[in-house]
């Protein structure tokens, strides 16, 4: 009986236990399925995602910065180069006490107040995690000293890299421009143009000049090393390497010797000179005075140097050749004469009797010639040679401003030349329509009169004047002025004419002869070209800075230096077979004949004769027409 009960109990016990065990089995089975589902999710469904994560875990992409292209002149003289050196860079975000660290660094490596100021400026503008140079161009001794103590300075790195250098400093500053550290705006621009990847690791970008315009060519293509790293960030092996493509070297059209001569020829004058090969548009010299030291800008200029440059009354940062706009003065006359011939308003033989002034019909206002008492009988030839104002007052009035505008416009006045630099301005070539639009005023006959001698609303850049002079030298065939002769790896391009004005040969010949006479006894620039070994066609010009009241006389000594007239000279030579055309502007230089023309002489002597400048023998004053 007892046995029976126990047995029954035991069976019920086992039954009950197996129920419980079964529940445990279900529990375990379900959770196993959960694991299986999870593993399936990770390994099959999300595999791509985790594979990417694993790859980015292990693969570290190191950009290899390409060497920036070297810039040379047309003869291979180096104008911008790279040299290897060391810089000390700081990552402020990784340093707890920046001031203390800098003080400590200063005990090993000299940090000048200038370096510190520059660093402070960079610090204020920095992006997060950016590294900033505290010192550049370390000496070998400084490198050794810091390297030995490196462990004391987490967040401070000694970097070997290539530095950009402009050995000619001020001589080529406005031409080459400079590179500088990439700023946020440039980053955004790169991003927009989808160039950001190519600038991974690049710290510099062309900011102005050739460096800016040819940034794409000069920068090169960034290479990449894919390095496998372990969790500690140590490189294990290189997975792949895409070598960088160095930036392309540029050969400029510039003749460094000519450039140097031109810069020296200016002496202390401010101004600009552009020399162009008329047969191709190649710019042989590109000078804007004063220049500045572009090397200061590469790693960020310090505030003091910046203020000095920025606040100087000489405005050294202004690229006068490209962006300076000046009234062209009498240099407009040869072009006016051509307009007169073109519209048949003047024949070569037509002459006026110049009393020394011009009056409009029904007005008593006298437009004065530069020469009191006038030049007597003046035909077209003589009008250029002596730069007779009265002749052009009358011509302009008869042509009318709109015909003047249309003719000069074809030459390229009032238009950008399209040179391969950024920021060119277009000058100004007025017309009745322009005045109405700009000033909401009708055009007055008096406006036309002063426009006839380039003293009205007209403005031109020195580059523009050189360009139109080259076109004139070519008999109307124009080439786009350009600064780069050859981009490495590119086939050299043969310059194609922009347009041909088809100036009738006898017109062109007349003007050329007259301009040659300018540089001979009786001409306004005779003194400067005394005994020149080649025929020079030239024209002087003077651009007024301040207006002289009716009845007053301009007295150079009475007005401040910065209000004196600007001196112009345009020329091409040899006149019969021009190899060079140029425009010189000497700011506040007074007369074109006395300051601008001598500069041109030195430049032409060097270019055509290979002559280094020497003091010029002055011609006797009596032989020379003193005017502009």
């Amino acid at each position, binding site marked *: 009986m007892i046995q029976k009960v126990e047995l029954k109990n035991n069976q019920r016990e086992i039954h009950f236990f197996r129920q419980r065990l079964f529940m445990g089995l279900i529990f375990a089975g379900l959770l196993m399925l959960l694991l299986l589902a999870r593993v399936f999710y990770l390994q*099959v469904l999300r*595999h791509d995602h985790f594979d990417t994560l694993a790859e980015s875990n292990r693969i570290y992409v190191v950009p290899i910065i390409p060497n920036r292209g070297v810039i040379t002149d047309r003869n291979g003289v180096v104008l911008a180069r790279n040299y290897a050196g060391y810089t000390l860079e700081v990552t402020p975000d990784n340093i707890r006490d920046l001031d203390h660290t800098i003080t400590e660094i200063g005990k090993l490596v000299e940090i000048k107040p200038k370096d510190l100021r520059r660093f402070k400026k960079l610090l204020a503008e920095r992006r997060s995690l950016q590294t900033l140079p505290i010192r550049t161009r370390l000496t070998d001794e400084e490198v050794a000293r810091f390297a030995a103590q490196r462990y004391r300075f987490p967040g401070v790195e000694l970097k070997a890299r290539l530095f950009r250098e402009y050995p000619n400093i001020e001589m080529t500053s406005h031409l080459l421009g400079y590179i500088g550290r990439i700023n946020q705006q440039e980053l955004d621009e790169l991003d927009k143009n989808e160039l950001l990847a190519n600038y991974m690791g690049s710290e510099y970008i062309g900011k102005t000049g050739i460096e800016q315009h040819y940034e794409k060519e000069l920068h090169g293509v960034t290479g990449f090393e894919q390095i496998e790293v372990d969790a500690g960030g140590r490189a294990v092996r290189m997975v792949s390497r895409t070598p960088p493509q160095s930036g392309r070297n540029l050969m400029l059209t510039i003749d460094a010797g000519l450039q140097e001569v031109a810069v020296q020829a200016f002496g202390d004058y401010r101004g600009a000179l552009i020399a162009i090969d008329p047969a191709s548009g190649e710019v042989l010299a590109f000078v804007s005075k004063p220049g500045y030291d572009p090397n200061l800008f590469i790693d960020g200029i310090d505030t003091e140097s910046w203020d000095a440059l920025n606040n100087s009354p000489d405005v050294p940062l202004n690229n006068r050749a490209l962006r300076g706009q000046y009234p062209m003065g009498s240099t407009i006359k040869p072009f006016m004469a051509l307009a007169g011939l073109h519209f048949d308003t003047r024949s070569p033989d037509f002459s006026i009797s110049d009393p020394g002034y011009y009056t409009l019909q029904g007005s008593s206002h006298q437009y004065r010639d530069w020469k009191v008492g006038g030049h007597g009988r003046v035909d077209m030839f003589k009008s250029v040679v002596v730069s007779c104002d009265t002749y052009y007052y009358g011509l302009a009035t008869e042509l009318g401003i709109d015909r003047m505008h249309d003719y000069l416009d074809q030459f390229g006045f009032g238009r950008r030349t399209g040179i391969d630099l950024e920021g060119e301005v277009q000058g100004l070539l007025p017309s009745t329509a322009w005045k109405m639009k700009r000033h909401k005023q009708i055009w007055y006959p008096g406006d036309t009169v002063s426009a006839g001698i380039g003293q009205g609303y007209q403005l031109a850049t020195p580059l523009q004047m050189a360009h139109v002079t080259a076109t004139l030298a070519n008999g109307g065939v124009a080439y786009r002025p350009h600064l780069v002769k050859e981009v490495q790896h590119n086939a050299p391009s043969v310059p194609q004419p922009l347009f041909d004005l088809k100036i009738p040969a006898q017109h062109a010949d007349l003007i050329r002869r007259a301009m040659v006479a300018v540089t001979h006894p009786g001409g306004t620039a005779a003194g400067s070209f005394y005994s020149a070994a080649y025929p020079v066609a030239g024209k002087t010009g003077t651009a007024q800075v301040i207006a002289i009241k009716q009845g007053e006389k301009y007295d150079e000594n009475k007005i401040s230096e910065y209000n004196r007239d600007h001196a112009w000279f345009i020329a091409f030579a040899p006149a019969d077979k021009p190899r060079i055309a140029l425009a010189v502007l000497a700011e506040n230089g007074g007369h074109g004949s006395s300051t601008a023309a001598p500069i041109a002489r030195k430049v032409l002597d060097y270019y055509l004769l290979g002559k280094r400048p020497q003091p010029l023998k002055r011609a006797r004053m009596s032989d020379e027409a003193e005017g502009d």
Partner: protein
Amino acid sequence: MNLRQLKQRFLLHLDPVLLSGLAGLLLVSLLTLYSASGGSGARVLAQLGNIAVGFAALWIIANMPLHWLMRLALPMYVLGMALLVGVALFGEISHGARRWLDVGVANIQPSELMKIAVPLMMAWYFERHEATLTWRNHLIAALLLVMPVALILRQPDLGTSILIMASGFFVLFLAGLPWRIIVSLIVTAAASAPFLWHALHDYQRQRILMLFDPSQDALGKGYHTIQGMIAVGSGGLMGKGYLAGTQTHLDFLPERTTDFIFAVWSEEFGFIGSLLLLALYVFVIGRGFFITANASTYFTRLMAGSITLTFFIYTFVNIGMVTGILPVVGVPLPLVSYGGTSLLTLMLGFGVLMSIHTHQRLVKT
């Protein structure tokens, strides 16, 4: 006695089915350890030694009659408790936790002993009171469980206390802990959670949140989980190939010979490999269930069921942790992770299973 007989005698108390499952897992362990230790044989040799010791223990336990084992229950438990108290008072501190006790000859970790001792003690207790089981017995059994768990939790060793808690709970559950108590325990825990949460310090809450969201602490503990998931996920269907796991070989995967060894295996052998490994575990657990279901006495049923389910929990917590569905609690992958102590405990457990199976068979025949 000839050789054949000797062999038979030797093999008498081993269960070939269970043994083949264990062999499969141990093979996986050796293969993976070789890869995880960067192709150095040292770890593999050491683990081979651990396996030898573990197997010897298994063999001894399997050949031990069950009443011997029952006789051991109380002394083992008492010794274990004494050692745990000893650890709490004079234990060695290592990695911020007080787990080891220096007994002169060697450092021992009493919590490992308790993995066997606690369920053994509870099963023995239930067996003694089998005829007159009341809720009082359940309460006492629960106390037998909670005391060591509390001491281990204090060390602190979350992983081990979870495993012991689970093994003890399974004994209670299989012994017939009434459902209303189970349900009311769950309800009480759920209801008190918000109040407990409220009572916690900020930093404590932060720690708990981090357990559930590893990305909050991507460089600390979360780093383990994230790198584990990356390793597993990047393995894909077929894996990256043996010895070719990048997460493993480039040091991204932490604890790769121990807690995160599953990630090494599945990175290199892919989903197919994971499936195979899970199948091996299912096989071993399944055999455990079979042995449990056929166990003849109350004690052996409880003991076998607890060992089997605990082995399962062991597996689930580890893989769940590596694949990011459970917080990181420091539980090794049973039989595969490197480590002699945990292997020894597991082999002892399987020895008990085999003993239960084979001695019962002998009784029947």
